[in-house]
């Protein structure tokens, strides 16, 4: 059984004006596999508790993990974690959790990562773990988001950050000035052009809101990818799940 363990906010980084990466110090944490998540528990002084699940954003490391939390102004937990949670404050975490939406760092197979909005978070953990372990598996990342202002991890997923990781960004509402591709949803043609062909039998990870995940998974199936090579993780509108 996974136990609840204290986690202290050690540092933070703002990915966008409404998305904050929390660097948590978790004594006894022995690392995780890329794609796994943690449950986070917050307890008020009167004993009221709230629990949420968040994907881990960082590569595996002892005693430390990073989460990126997107603000949902109507939510209960994300306004606290994004706005009020201060360095030195503590929550409890349980994990690492999940053995299915996980990239096997020893597998040489090519990898297609498809992220919608904050669905990029567990995919970023895979990119970081690839780098940390020196894996030579080829990655192609398709990142769908509304506007350039919503983009996370812009340096790490910037132009030519890593020759083994191709990054394609699809803006759905506002494209940057001068870009060849207008604002439009990620299409089957995009998956075809920027993913790997089905003949290469890549393993495909899709994460994002429910509708996005369903559309992307249907697109992969239409392109001939085998259902058992497609792994999905949906999250709800409020908070991570």
């Amino acid at each position, binding site marked *: 059984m996974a136990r*609840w363990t*204290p986690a202290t906010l050690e540092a933070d980084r703002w990915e966008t004006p409404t998305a904050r990466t929390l660097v948590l110090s978790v004594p006894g944490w022995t690392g995780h596999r890329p794609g796994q998540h943690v449950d986070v528990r*917050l*307890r*008020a*002084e009167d*004993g*009221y508790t*709230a629990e949420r699940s968040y994907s881990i954003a960082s590569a595996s490391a002892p005693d430390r993990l990073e989460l990126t939390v997107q603000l949902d102004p*109507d939510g*209960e937990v994300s306004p*606290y974690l994004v706005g*009020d*949670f*201060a360095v030195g*404050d*503590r*929550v*409890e975490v349980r994990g690492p959790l999940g053995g299915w939406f996980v990239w096997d760092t020893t597998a040489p197979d090519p990898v297609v990562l498809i992220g919608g909005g904050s669905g990029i978070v567990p995919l970023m953990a895979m990119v970081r773990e690839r780098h940390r372990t020196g894996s030579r598996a080829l990655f192609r990342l398709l990142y769908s988001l509304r506007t350039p202002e919503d983009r996370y991890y812009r340096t790490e997923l910037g132009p030519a950050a890593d020759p083994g990781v191709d990054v394609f960004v699809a803006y759905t509402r506002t494209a940057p000035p001068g870009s060849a591709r207008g604002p439009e949803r990620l299409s089957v043609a995009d998956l075809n052009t920027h993913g790997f062909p089905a003949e290469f039998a890549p393993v495909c990870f899709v994460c994002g809101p429910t509708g996005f995940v369903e559309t992307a998974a249907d697109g992969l199936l239409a392109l001939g990818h085998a259902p058992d090579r497609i792994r999905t993780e949906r999250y709800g509108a409020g908070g991570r799940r």
Partner: protein
Amino acid sequence: MNLITRGFHGRRGGDPTRIPPGQYETHDFPVLTVGPTPRVDTDTWTFTITTETGARHTWTWEQLLALPQESPHTDIHCVTRWSKLDTDWTGVSLDTLLEDVETTAEYALAHSHGGYTTDLPLQDLTDGQAWIAHTFDGHPLDPEHGGPARLLVPHLYFWKSAKWISGLTLLDEDEPGFWEQAGYHDYGDPWREQRYRGD
């Protein structure tokens, strides 16, 4: 170990005469679901009350709409801790539907399209306390909120107000419904915070 997260309060509170303990006020209408939303056609819709002797009383959609309509204005309280104040509904009182039903039953099990059930004492469905509601805020009830018609029993936690209602079975003995089987309270009074069995 009870670690406190400093500065975290959760979402609670409001006017204590309107918001029951442990609830918070929302202005949205959250959709709570235990499965896919059934699409129920009013052409084939029926509502059936089955008594403890097996007698059946069935209404079609037209027959329901031909009955006297009431427009309750009420607050609703969901066990997932949101309360929504001043909601407006239109529907048929269970008093009207039970008028010609011969019964000495003490309990009712509400059934929904999609398989959901919930149990209530029959006396909580009478005396102007419960309706088969088909209109919310002046508009036909959305399928996500239980349309074409749902049970409305606003003095109990809202899981008792079964969406997509298809019928009531009247029973001499209480029979737990979907959430009641899984540990929720058989009665569910929000003002006494009867969330779980044993509360």
